[in-house]
């Protein structure tokens, strides 16, 4: 890079709930994280300006660091060309916007309507409404509903190629009549994707071309027996980045703030969408280390899952956005999707359902609050387990295709997939699982994050677990665009916290009381024998960076990586939690059905991993 070396970096991530700022500086030849600050995101009234949250978050760093980083009058981050004051570069990512909210339209509700819905869901949208020619509503009711819901984007499909044109055009007429105003931004056109009968493209274009930001892609249901969702999905992602996010209040100013001086000239650094930035970083990690990686970022409105898995000779990167699974805006939807019982199975005390529902609703309507009491934390982490679990289910369903090949699904294939599990996600071959997002990164104890990730994702065999220490993967993702070496250095030293390796035999053997025998040889030559007992989980403390050689002999039919009953030899690495030996079973993993036994087990596991303070055992429901 031309010009002066960058040694002071300010980066922010404007999440849907919190805006996080980090200060990175190069000292003694290495880039390190110096300070972080955070503040509520300010897209809501009364501020309605994303930059206010940025100022507050950077202001916190100023307070803690005792230095100035903001311009006089609060008009942005002070970026200097000569290292005199402020920082050398400012950059930002953002997911403020509360997720992508879409309305989809198709001719027949159960056919193209449903295909459109699948495409939108797969792209990570919340589908607010499915408009169809046969949905039973009068046209003016459809018009009114589209207007009222104010979708961020509309996906219009309908008709197989060569099929109906009139109905599709009629849907276009309805959208035209609705002329929905997007949530943000005056005078900006609503993005509409047309992925229907190719013969109707021209007519649809005539109807909508002037009024909306129309993008025409391949039909998502070219013939009745086949879906082709990829073009529509890609297009949704693209338009979301380009049009929807950029309309959040205050964005244009934020875009002006982000940049640096190159040879005395101001150069902007584009604002990167948070999921895009995190995905980039995950890909870099997988590439640099030559491993299979999965990352999850659980936010307030959405949960993103990223994975890099091998498929034959190729490595395939996949990303899904579960726009309706999150810990604040979408928290009620987690309860609705997972069900009360599934959430409560992780809670070792009894709670009145009505009470829990009210608490969750109150979190939804006041999304920025945090648990003050231990009991509330336990409940929140239980919800997080379910949100993570459901996000993984969605990811598995979508991460099936081959790179560069359209993810086409025939009715027959769909049937095959469930039969053979043709998803690329393989929890047995997965090497590294990284958790990110407030509930994981900010968990008061690292062991809580470890167990949340283990319970939700159920890693099999040998898997290294890690968390983003203070939730800075988004900022490092955008930094990697400008200064890859700084991003990698800070990621290794300050961001990625290795929790430790999880060893979990998978498979069914009802008779085995011991799932695997482990023989460990430490670096000093001493050795240790461990039995992974059925139904138990425990930790062997081992510091970050320390490695031991291990020989693991699974019981009959059980697998730790080399196949059922086959011995595994290799290195196990420690972490801040240690090496976790999980004998609770995989395929299947079940919690005891008997309630008191379940509570007893949860308490036992909590104690084994030192998840919660001792008073956790005596917690009861209610206030």
């Amino acid at each position: 890079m031309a010009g002066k070396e960058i040694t002071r970096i300010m980066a922010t991530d404007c999440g849907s709930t919190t805006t996080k700022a980090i200060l990175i500086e190069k000292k003694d030849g290495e880039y390190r994280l110096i300070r972080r600050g955070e503040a509520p995101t300010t897209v809501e009234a009364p501020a309605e300006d994303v930059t206010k949250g940025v100022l507050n978050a950077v202001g916190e760093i100023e307070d803690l660091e005792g230095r100035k980083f903001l311009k006089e009058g609060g008009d942005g981050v002070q970026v200097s060309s000569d290292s005199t004051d402020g920082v050398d570069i400012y950059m930002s990512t953002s997911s403020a916007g509360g997720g992508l909210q879409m309305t989809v339209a198709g001719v027949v509700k159960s056919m193209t309507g449903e295909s459109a819905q699948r495409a939108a869901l797969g792209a990570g949208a919340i589908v607010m409404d499915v408009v169809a020619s046969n949905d039973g509503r009068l046209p003016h009711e459809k018009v009114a509903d589209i207007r009222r819901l104010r979708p961020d984007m509309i996906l219009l499909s309908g008709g197989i190629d060569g099929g109906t044109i009139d109905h599709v055009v009629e849907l276009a007429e309805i959208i035209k009549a609705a002329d929905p105003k997007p949530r943000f931004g005056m005078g900006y056109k609503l993005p509409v994707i047309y992925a229907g009968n190719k013969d109707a493209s021209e007519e649809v274009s005539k109807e909508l071309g002037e009024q909306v930001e129309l993008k025409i892609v391949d039909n998502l249901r070219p013939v009745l027996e086949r879906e082709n969702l990829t073009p529509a999905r890609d297009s949704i992602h693209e338009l979301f980045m380009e049009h929807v996010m950029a309309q959040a209040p205050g964005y244009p100013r934020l875009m002006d703030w982000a940049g640096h001086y190159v040879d005395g000239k101001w150069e902007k650094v584009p604002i990167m969408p948070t999921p895009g930035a995190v995905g980039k970083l995950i890909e870099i990690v997988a590439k640099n280390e030559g491993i299979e990686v999965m990352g999850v970022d659980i936010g307030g409105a959405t949960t993103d899952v990223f994975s890099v898995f091998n498929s034959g000779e190729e490595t395939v990167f996949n990303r899904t956005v579960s726009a309706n699974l999150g810990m604040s805006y979408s928290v009620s939807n987690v309860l609705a999707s997972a069900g009360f019982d599934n959430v409560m199975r992780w809670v070792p005390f009894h709670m009145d359902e009505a009470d829990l529902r009210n608490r969750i609703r109150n979190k939804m309507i006041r999304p920025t609050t945090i648990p003050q009491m231990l009991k509330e934390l336990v409940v929140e982490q239980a919800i997080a387990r379910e949100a993570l679990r459901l996000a993984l289910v969605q990811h598995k369903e979508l991460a099936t295709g081959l790179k560069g090949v359209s993810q086409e699904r025939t009715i027959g294939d769909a049937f095959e997939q469930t039969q053979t599990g043709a998803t690329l996600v393989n929890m047995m071959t997965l090497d590294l699982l990284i958790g990110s997002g407030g509930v994981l990164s900010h968990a008061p104890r690292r062991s809580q994050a470890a167990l949340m990730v283990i319970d939700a994702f159920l890693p099999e065999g040998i898997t290294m677990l890690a968390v983003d220490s203070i939730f800075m993967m988004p900022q490092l993702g955008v930094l990697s665009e400008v200064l890859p070496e700084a991003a990698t250095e800070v990621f290794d030293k300050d961001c990625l916290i290795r929790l430790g390796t999880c060893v979990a035999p998978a498979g069914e053997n009802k008779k085995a009381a011991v799932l695997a025998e482990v023989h460990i040889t430490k670096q000093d030559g001493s050795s240790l024998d461990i039995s992974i007992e059925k139904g138990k989980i425990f930790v062997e403390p081992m510091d970050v960076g320390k490695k031991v050689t291990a020989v693991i002999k699974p019981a009959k039919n059980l697998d730790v990586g080399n196949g059922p009953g086959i011995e595994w030899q290799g290195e196990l690495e420690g972490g801040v939690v240690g090496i976790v030996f999980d004998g609770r079973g995989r395929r299947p993993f079940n919690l005891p059905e008997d309630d008191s036994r379940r509570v007893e087990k949860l308490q036992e596991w909590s104690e084994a991993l030192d998840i919660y303070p001792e008073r956790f055992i005596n917690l009861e429901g209610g206030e």
Partner: protein
Amino acid sequence: MAFAYTPGLRVAPSTLVRKERRLPLAGETLVGTGDPVIAETIVATTHLPGNVKMLNIANVMGLPPGDIHELLFVAEGDVIEENQTLGQTKGLFGLFKNTVRSPIHGVFESYNKITGQAVLREPPIPVEIDAYLKGTVTEVLENEGVIVETNATYVQGIFGIGGETRGELKVLTDGPADELTEELIDESCKGKVLLGGSFVSYETLNKAIKTGVKAIIVGGFDDKDLKKFLGYDLGVAITGHEKKGITLILTEGFGRMTMAHGTFKLLRSREGMLASVNGATQIRAGVMRPEVVIPLEKAEVSKDTEKQAGAMDIGSPVRCIRAPYFGKLGTVEALPAELMVLDSEAKVRVLNVKFENGEIATVPRANVELIEE
């Protein structure tokens, strides 16, 4: 930092309220700039395309779709009456004819030679938009609608269901901590917007609907009642379109929650006045909260009665919005800069709040909201 930013809801004794009243599609505006309007004044009107009826004529006639055209008595675009004969087969020796009659009054819009389907459209549906508020038209959006402005008492709720409605404000509970019970609702509540205290139950809500109550403003409501009332579990908070015959506005949240004294006091002082309310809520960025708008007579107007939103300082009135102090009101006693460890072991920025009973508690800054009184 001398102060901290915190979100809050608007509770303004007097402020300028500006409402855009738009038609669902282009039409005609009926009022002009400067015109005084009342809530019921129709400000714009249009005709939406009528409902479409699909009729498979080929199936009814029992003939291939391509053979139908010459048997039709109507052409595309013709006005048709209910029961009017649209077409007829030739029959056998003039007998056994199959006749197709129109099920609606409207227009014969099109016939598809491939599918045999005819599209019949009912007459256009008139749509009218009212002013929603008593006020003045300050801008006309050509063919689309108008902007109505008024000086009003403005109260934002935290969550609501049901759309726009209006009625005279009637206070039903003695104080903000009292529940709005079934017994309090009688015939005198018909057509009114009721102000309750801390809570309303599912049963009371139903009685209110039967009585003809327009809207209820209360502190809290149970989520299990919401599910029962709506008939489904609300996943993402996007409301306003429910057609339950009533609009419900919660000022505090879910559960039994004393309404903020200031909110209750302000609304009580407006008893007998006409309130326009809207329960529509969208909780996400670009948030939309439910509202109560009570237009004021000119004499009552005083500008700048609102505090600067968002700035929290020592002495600022706040409401705790999370357990264990949920719903409690107090003032900011201190804003310590250093992070503190909570019961949950989380290390966060906090503030000390002095409650109305003199008790002082430490709470995370994220768990309070400013009361703008």
